[in-house]
């Protein structure tokens, strides 16, 4: 799925869900607020009715309005109250806040309750009339706190923002994860595509070069035979030249053979191979070429380690690496050892040379890259190809003037 499609498929529905959540919560809070307001208003009216039931008797008993009203000033939800005569003149009042009685002449005729905002919160206001036994009309003005409602609404709002934040954070984390997953997936897909293309190209080149090698080798064999014949028939003073010619033809033939084999797909004949057996095989090959320098090669014995590999190919690969190490180390020792890992074996080939330069390190596994005057530069390329064919990995660590360590990770022995 492309990035844009993913956005449409996941992100837009998520935004929709968040909007629905937001809208629903807003309506819900508005609904709660309306209901609580109604409830508080009913409570206010009930309080007013209760007071109005008592006030006539107290007035008839001769208590002054101030005295009567002040007794209610400690009631938790009553912020202020006042007693007005029939002409709406304030006879007495009481307030929790210094001199605060927000009654205006514009409001004394009101029948419904109204809300005013104050620094202490919202206050419900109500003016209602009552009569004493002597048919005197009075008005009671009451200011009722909405603090509990505001606390509840603040709590609700806080919960809403917390939930909203949580939903957003979870959503963002989800999308980050999703995008990372998708990016990784796309990258992998691209890599696989490239690998597939590379394999295809490699197969074509391989087929082409195998054909070419075959076509070159046939005339070379004929030339070599001709050189043999010439060698026998030419005067002795020319035999040196014919011999040299044959050697050069054989050299070309070997190069073509190597080139051809490097491009052929590998066919593995795997078996369990003990480290001692493998090292002995490599040592035997090295002895033919480096007999005088064998004392520099130190194969560390290990009776536990065994690998599951094609003996010929692995030996060839290890031979190439040790040979390179011997050439790089000049007079220093080359150490070859094996370590048993969980399911694999790591073989280390360590030289004491000058190490790779930056460019050498970058191109080390490229085919036909070499720093030697002799050689085609396919040794490391082939070595890596052999290891990868075994499902392993070939890498190296290099430090200037401290040599190179080649690390071969290869599957360990297979149990029946």
């Amino acid at each position, binding site marked *: 799925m492309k990035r844009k499609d993913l956005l449409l498929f996941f992100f837009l529905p998520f935004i929709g869900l968040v909007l629905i959540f937001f809208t629903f919560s807003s309506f819900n809070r508005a609904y709660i607020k309306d209901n609580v307001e109604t409830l508080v208003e009913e409570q206010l009216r009930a309080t007013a009715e209760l007071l109005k039931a*008592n006030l006539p*008797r*107290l007035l008839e008993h001769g*208590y002054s309005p*101030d*005295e*009567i009203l*002040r*007794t209610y000033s400690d009631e938790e939800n009553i912020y202020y109250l006042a007693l007005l005569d029939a002409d709406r003149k*304030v006879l007495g*009042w*009481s*307030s*929790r*806040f*210094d*001199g*605060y*009685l*927000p*009654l*205006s*002449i*514009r409001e004394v005729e009101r029948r419904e309750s109204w809300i*005013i905002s*104050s*620094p*202490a919160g919202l206050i419900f206001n109500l003016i209602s009339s009552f009569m004493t036994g002597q048919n005197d009309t009075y008005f009671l003005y009451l200011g009722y706190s909405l603090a509990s409602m505001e606390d509840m609404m603040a709590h609700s709002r806080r919960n809403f923002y917390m939930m909203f934040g949580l939903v957003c954070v979870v959503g963002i984390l989800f999308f980050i994860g999703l995008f990372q997953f998708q990016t990784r997936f796309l990258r992998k897909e691209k890599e696989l595509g490239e690998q597939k293309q590379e394999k295809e190209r490699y197969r074509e080149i391989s087929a082409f070069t195998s054909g070419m090698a075959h076509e070159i080798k046939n005339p070379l064999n004929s030339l070599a035979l001709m050189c043999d014949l010439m060698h026998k028939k030419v005067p002795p003073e020319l035999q040196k030249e014919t011999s040299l010619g044959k050697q050069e033809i054989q050299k070309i033939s070997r190069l073509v053979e190597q080139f051809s084999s490097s491009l052929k797909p590998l066919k593995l004949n795997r078996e369990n191979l003990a480290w001692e057996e493998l090292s002995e095989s490599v040592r035997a090959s090295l002895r033919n070429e480096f007999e005088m320098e064998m004392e520099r090669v130190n194969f560390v014995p290990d009776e536990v380690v065994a690998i599951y590999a094609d003996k010929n190919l692995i030996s060839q690969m290890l031979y190439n690496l040790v040979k390179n190490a011997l050439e790089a180390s000049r007079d220093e020792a080359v150490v070859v050892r094996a370590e048993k890992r969980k399911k694999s074996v790591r073989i280390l080939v360590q030289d004491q040379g000058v190490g790779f330069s930056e460019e050498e390190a970058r191109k080390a596994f490229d085919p036909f890259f070499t720093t030697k005057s002799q050689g085609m530069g396919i040794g490391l390329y082939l070595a890596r190809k052999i290891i990868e064919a075994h499902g392993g990995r070939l890498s190296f660590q290099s430090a200037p003037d401290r040599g190179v360590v080649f690390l071969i990770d290869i599957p360990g022995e297979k149990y029946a």
Partner: protein
Amino acid sequence: MKWHKFLWIFMIFLGLRLSAAQQTPRFYNVDKEVEILGKIQNIMMEPRSEGRAPFLVIELEEKSTQKPFTVEVSPAWFFEYDLHKGESLKIIGSLVSEGALNLVMARQLRHRGEIITVRDQHGFPSWSGSKGNQRGRRKR
């Protein structure tokens, strides 16, 4: 029957509470708001009621009419602003008693270009009941 019993208990309770009640002098009447530009004649700290912190009270003479006004500002501890005798001062407040006293409860003072608010537009005192109120808060 039960209702009457409750009423008598309530009356007894009320009687006890009435004996402890204190007199609250004046409220901020929003319908009687006035604006006075005057000269400070005197600055005093007066107890407004028993057991309460002293109030900052200013005697002011209106510039245009030379009429004297007594202005109740705020508790002295709340007002952190320097006023001096003879200075010019503009008051917005509620004229709560007229006659010889001309008592004004201040809502806003304007002094040397600064606005000092001691009550809100409904008369709510800035020194009580709210987290938002700050000492001697002023607006420009």
